[in-house]
């Protein structure tokens, strides 16, 4: 399990108090991944020896400096990048490629600019056969557009929408196939601060409704604490797990004065101490 390297777990201890009923969904064992740097003829290790188990219905935030391999980890779960060493399993099977059981939200939205909002949300149903009738797909698309409050914008093109609205299309697209796992790669990083808070609370609402397992990348400590059940702190490249922190704050978190709770300050202080050196030395982050 994701026991931290040398970290003394301050709160409840890593993995302490878990009920035996918890069902593992994503299991990463000694996962090491990197990239080929063609120009320099080098292999670059992005992630090293990641051991982490993510359980059903859990909201896990990956927190770390730019270029620490967070995206690589999520790409490994989605099946975009194969492991070099070790293994990554979803539902007990090794990941060999993308599948409808995993949906993803991208930092730059990654909406097809030539498709309408509705057509973007429909895209996953066109590329993979989910054994749904045309009417069922229509209903799904309409339902998830309604969930993200974009009813009435079906025929709009992405360039006609604001950043927040674009990302809501991205979220609807990821949720519409009703995947077990929702992967999110800094989805709110490019969205202005006020909209971001609203989007965070909406995301909490969506996944509470759908009971999905969420793996969420962020480089914001506050975002990690307000959203995550557990926070995985990753070190600078090559990325290793520094510590896994449980966040036992009550939900729904956006209904309360979360930031005034003493626990909040305590976790924040602890994480800040963990990432301070990383963040300061990471001023030259290349990601």
């Amino acid at each position, binding site marked *: 399990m994701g026991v931290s390297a040398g970290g003394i777990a301050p709160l409840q201890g890593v993995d302490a108090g878990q009920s035996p009923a918890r069902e593992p969904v994503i299991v990463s064992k000694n996962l090491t991944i990197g990239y080929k740097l063609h120009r320099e003829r080098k292999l670059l290790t992005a992630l090293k020896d990641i051991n982490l188990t993510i359980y059903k219905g859990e909201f896990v935030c990956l927190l770390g400096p730019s270029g620490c391999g967070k995206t690589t980890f999520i790409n490994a779960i989605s099946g*975009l990048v194969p492991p070099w060493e070790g293994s990554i399993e979803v539902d007990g099977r090794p990941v060999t490629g993308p599948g409808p059981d995993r949906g993803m939200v991208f930092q730059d939205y*990654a909406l097809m600019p030539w498709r309408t909002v509705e057509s973007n949300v429909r895209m996953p149903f066109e590329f993979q056969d989910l054994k749904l009738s045309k009417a069922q797909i229509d209903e799904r698309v309409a339902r998830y557009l309604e969930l993200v409050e974009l009813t009435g914008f079906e025929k709009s093109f992405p360039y006609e929408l604001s950043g927040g609205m674009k990302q809501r299309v991205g979220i609807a697209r990821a949720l519409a196939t009703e995947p077990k796992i929702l992967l999110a790669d800094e989805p709110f990083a490019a969205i202005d601060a006020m909209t971001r808070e609203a989007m965070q609370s909406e995301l909490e609402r969506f996944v509470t409704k759908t009971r999905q397992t969420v793996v969420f990348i962020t480089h914001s400590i506050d975002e990690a604490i307000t959203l995550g059940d557990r926070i995985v702190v990753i070190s600078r490249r090559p990325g290793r797990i520094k510590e896994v922190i449980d966040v036992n704050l009550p939900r729904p978190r956006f209904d309360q004065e979360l930031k005034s709770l003493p626990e909040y300050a305590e976790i924040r202080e602890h994480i800040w101490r963990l990432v301070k050196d990383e963040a300061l030395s990471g001023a030259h982050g290349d990601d």
Partner: protein
Amino acid sequence: MAKIDSNASGSKGAFDDADRIRSMKFSLTDMLDRYGPVWVTVVNLTCFFIIWELFARSGAINQIFLPTASGMFGTMFEGLTNSAPPTAAYSGQIIDHLTYTLRNLSIGLVIACVIGIPAGLLMGGNKYIETILGPYVWALASLPRIALVPLFILFMGFTVKMQITIIVLSAVFPIIINAWAGVKTTEKSLIAAAKVFGAKERDIYLHVVFPYTLPFIISGVQQGIGRGLIGVVIAEIFGGSMGLGFLINRAADTFNSELMYAVLMLLVIVSLSLIKLTSTIEKRVAPWRQQLKM
């Protein structure tokens, strides 16, 4: 909202409105916004032709070199409407030369698209094809096509075939290079998104790379039209017995400056209309690109 508005219009509203109205002043930009660039252009061009007319009539420049605007338009109108037999004065058959040139240009452009679009897409999609074809494409693209005209005349003589070959060679490279660049610059995150949502290799080309490349292809064709028009005029000037290029040459030989200017004006009109046509198509096909350009 509504409540605030009604409050404002109650006590202080009138004052606010007065302020707003007072702040409006008419400036040149307001006129532009109001009457639109179209009317400004109409006025602008009318002034241009009037000044031209007056200048030509003043006799400052010999009319052999600079005809009057009215004379030019008269010749153009007569040449486009008068269907005199080809044996009559050359000014009587601009329309025949125009259709000849446009026909060859269209044939050449269609051939250039049929060759250029698949070639560019393949080069962008397959790095082996790219490596093999790349040097030839760059070499031929950078060679001034006029330099090839004597060679083609040697090969094919003063034929339509020679002219069309030159048009194709002029137009095909911008099309190839744009299609190629479109494929190469397809946003990685769009491809990643398509993959995550189940797209296979074929889906990615069909549903991501191709739609992304389409506007590039259109602007390639747009550049191809410009180059093709140069090609066709050069081919006709060098060796031909028909077409607008030939007509320019003949007009110069016979000191018929009104005809010469009429043909030049027609070339401008043809070129602008074709470019307008492709940008209209682009707006239709890829409205999202318009936004990126602004």
